[in-house]
């Protein structure tokens, strides 16, 4: 018994020594939407600055907001900006200091599907999308879909809807769009990170939805563009407010942000779904890092500020390779000034 105890203590001590390191660990959690670019950024940043380790857990925007409010992580990430109630809740838990939103990239939520025999890009009207997710358009060969996809052989199979099971910024973007183009959706379901979906199964994270669509025939889901691209699953074009069917890509997402860039509010909370513009992709969005206004640990504070500056300059160089669009110049300039607000 004594020998065992001594052995255990020895091992513990060894562990503590061996694993003790000088690197400062900064913890974050949140959206799965930008996870591919964040994981790349944090990896690259760590190689450039070995003293800092940014540990980001892709658990969904809802969890990101909650954990940064509770203070169990140093920063959060979300594609659905915090609403006023959530910001107030944060202030109450943190002695009145606030939380800041920093846009990082522009991305797009795309309708991705797995239909037998269909390998190309399908066109979706706003009404079709609303109908599908409301559970009213139930078959792939429904006129709402076939009428805008002439020449494509759509089967008479049931549409299986896949949505998010966790609190998701991607869901926020999707439901925000649906609320704008469908009165019925707005009154029946509403927008949010976690809604009462009328139909479908839930996948965990963008990863889970992609996985479900990839493996289950006749499904449709919504994911961030890069997930569809990286996994070689087809995604459709959506009819924008000018009447054009636009597929999500760097150009169409940047076009969607053009208007907002000029009129960006000071707190950076803005929605660009169903944006005007001939070439705009209607389901685009910024995604934000949530940084507390006051960071207690000076080491962490400087690390975060350093990362943000890097992200706005060098970091933007690697986003297009992963199909995210760069932030508009005006937004970058505004953010650089806003970094000073972090104390």
């Amino acid at each position, binding site marked *: *018994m004594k020998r065992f105890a001594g052995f255990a203590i020895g091992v*513990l001590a060894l562990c503590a020594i061996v694993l*003790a390191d000088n690197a400062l660990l900064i913890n974050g959690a949140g959206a799965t939407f930008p996870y*591919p670019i964040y*994981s790349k950024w944090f990896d690259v940043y760590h190689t450039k600055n070995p003293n800092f380790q940014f540990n980001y857990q892709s658990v969904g925007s809802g969890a990101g907001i909650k954990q940064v409010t*509770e203070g*169990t*992580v140093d920063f959060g990430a979300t594609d659905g900006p915090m609403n006023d109630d959530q910001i107030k809740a944060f202030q109450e838990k943190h002695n009145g200091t606030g939380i800041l939103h920093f846009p990082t990239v522009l991305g797009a939520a795309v309708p991705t599907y797995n239909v037998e025999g269909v390998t190309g890009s399908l066109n979706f009207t706003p009404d079709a999308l609303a109908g599908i997710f409301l559970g009213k358009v139930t078959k792939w060969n429904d006129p709402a879909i076939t009428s805008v996809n002439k020449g494509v052989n759509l089967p008479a199979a049931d549409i299986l809807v896949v949505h998010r099971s966790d609190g998701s910024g991607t869901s926020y973007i999707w439901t925000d769009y649906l609320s704008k183009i469908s009165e019925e959706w707005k009154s029946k379901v509403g927008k949010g990170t976690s809604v009462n979906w009328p139909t479908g199964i839930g996948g965990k994270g963008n*990863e*889970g939805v992609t996985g479900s669509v990839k493996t289950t025939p006749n499904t449709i889901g919504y994911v961030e563009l890069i997930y569809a691209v990286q996994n070689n699953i087809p995604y459709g074009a959506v009819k924008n407010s000018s009447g054009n069917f636009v597929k999500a890509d760097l150009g169409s997402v940047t076009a969607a942000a053009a208007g907002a860039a000029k009129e960006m509010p000071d707190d950076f909370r803005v929605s660009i779904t169903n944006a005007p513009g001939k070439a705009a992709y209607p389901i685009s969005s910024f995604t934000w890092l949530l940084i507390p206004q006051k960071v207690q640990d000076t080491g962490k504070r400087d690390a975060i500020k350093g990362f943000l500056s890097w992200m706005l300059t060098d970091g933007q160089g690697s986003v297009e390779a992963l199909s995210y669009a760069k932030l508009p110049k005006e937004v970058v300039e505004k953010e650089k000034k806003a970094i000073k607000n972090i104390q």
Partner: protein
Amino acid sequence: MTGRLRWRKFVSNFMLAMTGVCAFVSVLVLFFILGYLVFNGGTSINWDFFTKLPKPVGEAGGGMANAIVGSGKILLLASLMGVPIGFLGGIYLAEFSGKGMASVVRYAADLLNGVPSIVIGIFAYSLVVLPFKHFSAYAGAFALGIMMIPITLRSTEEFLKSVPRMLREGAMALGASKWKTIASVIVPAAYRGILTAILLALARVAGETAPLLFTAFGNRFESHGWSQPTATLPVMIYTYAVSPYDDWHRQAWAAGLVLLGLVLIINILARTILSRGFAIPRS
């Protein structure tokens, strides 16, 4: 008469054969699981798997070094938390307690044993994560440690009680005080059984995922010390399995094989120790 008897005999043989089928099917499942894991995960177990950190999303390669170390750390700490409580509590039940106190403690232990692991996770979150404001290895260890207590407690009590009276009485006749009897005679006599129980408790919590979801959370890097979020093998398997990336699936299989291998080895070890007898043989 003989016709009816023949039918009854036929039914008898048939039904008994069916029970044999049931038994073999049940056992076959174990080998199927093992085989499938070896087949799918075996090829992915290479040096990288054990030594490298995870790569960014979508990039192939990388390993689970941090998860393996993280699991090891948490299990070690969980044992240090749970085993002494269970062991010493078991001694109390077997050697010192009166009937009333004993049944209360036993009841509490049985209750704790039946609590679903996700609920233990909730408990650990409210008690250890929230007040300290971060996810940590010791929060995870706390949750797992609690789960180890009931098995250790009940087994310690059982095995201590089953030590032959003659050993006890002999020691006391020689004038040893009670605690000395326990420490130098009874516990060593029962050590095999107790060790088995500890190993089985360890095997049980080694595979637990749910309580770690909101205590240890997760980490892409090595976790230093005990107060940082920590990657663990079961949580990594879960994360990778529900993702769409084939490379991650491959790694999930490999991790599953490692985890299952670990759990089975501990189990087999424990049962082998126990089958050799739980008390020192009378020479």
